């Protein structure tokens, strides 16, 4: 499973890295970024799906 954030859509609400800190991290501006290449670590699938569904801007996509 892999996630990606569209930087043109993300406005830095910060919910993804707060809820799934093993998948997302904040940059210095507070925008979300995927960790490494966005591959979701084992056991973090549910957190990743939650982050996708909970993003207010709909900026995160997920590939199973």
């Amino acid at each position: 499973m892999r996630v990606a954030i569209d930087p043109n859509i993300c406005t830095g609400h910060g919910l993804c890295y707060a809820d799934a800190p093993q998948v997302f991290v904040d940059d210095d501006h507070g925008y979300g970024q995927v960790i490494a290449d966005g591959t979701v670590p084992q056991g973090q699938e549910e957190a990743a799906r939650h982050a996708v569904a909970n993003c207010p801007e709909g900026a995160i996509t997920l590939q199973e």
Partner: protein
Amino acid sequence: MPNDALPRIATDDLPMPEARDDAWRLLGEHRLVEVEDGYAATGRDVVETVLKNPSVFSSKKAFDILGSPVPLVPIAFDPPEQARYRRILQPFFSPKAIRPLEHGLRRQIIDLIEPIAEKGSCEYVAEVASVFPIQVFLTLFGLPLDMRDQFFVWKNAVLNLTAASGQTSVDGAASEGIQKAAELFVYLSELIQKRRGVPGDDVLSQVLNLQPPDALTDDEAIGLCFLFVLAGLDTVMDSLGFGMQRLATNPDKRREIVEDPSLIPAATEELLRLDPPAPFLPRVTTEETTLGGASFPEGTRVTGYLATANRDENLFTDPYGIDFHRPENRHLTFGLGVHRCLGSHLARLEMHLVYEEWHKRIPDYHITPGTTPRVHWPRGTTGLDALHLTFGKAQAR
């Protein structure tokens, strides 16, 4: 669809003061409503369209009428100017920048709550919700906490002026407000002169010491300070007042966060979903456009109604209920798109600290019998005038 087919609601007559859920229910029956000053986008889908298309739905045009003497950085701007301010300011309000403040702010809220816990009752808005955000502002801007009461007076003067904008006659109270706002203006101007070129850890010093092309002019810096006062103080105060009112009247929900404080972030989001303190985001169309099947000419005022969008039943099951266990909570209380609330990370931290430290010390409380919390209305922002709480379990009647 011609616009005269849209339902009309006189918002001034809504039962907002004592039954705000009923008011939102009435507004939320339609996704677009004609209101006194234009149109209300109340459905989630149309609110998203309005907030995500700043070139068609301009924030700048909507805030022009405030007639502010200084540029309200960045809400009174549209992209691309807005993007510049946003890029410059965002790092100062990011989670990384805010986190180091947590320890000191937690100490401050404990110092506020401890004496109140011993009293057995309080007026929560005056004693907690209104003062803590001012202390946070002073801390962030590197100002002494003993300026709190002075800032309280200035803040109310500035906010009352904004609320009164559009009125043509200037009465005694308004001219006193103008004088107080002018005092704040002078104070901030002198502060900016003092801080420029002097290194410092506080946000204001750091903003003032930015180098070109990011450097802000004096007017821009004052505008930023004013915006912080306008956007960062009463919003948190009103959210805290609303949240505590719901917790006071729903002891089963309160019990959940007392027994499991790790629920506080989710509870904060749920309380924010139900009661956005700035529930109306005004925009003005820059061209003829269609929205939700209706067409609007250029220059139409279209306001995004967040509290109704936050109760959209397609997105939230039991949207009027309080549920700290929602799997997702995509509320719009901090807005959406380019103007998303710059201070959301700070606001969340403030609320988490208050809810955590309060419930450690005062797990049981209820609304003082004989008092009724009321929402000031009509007004551009919503909040409680007062919230009288008595501690301990309510007497069974």
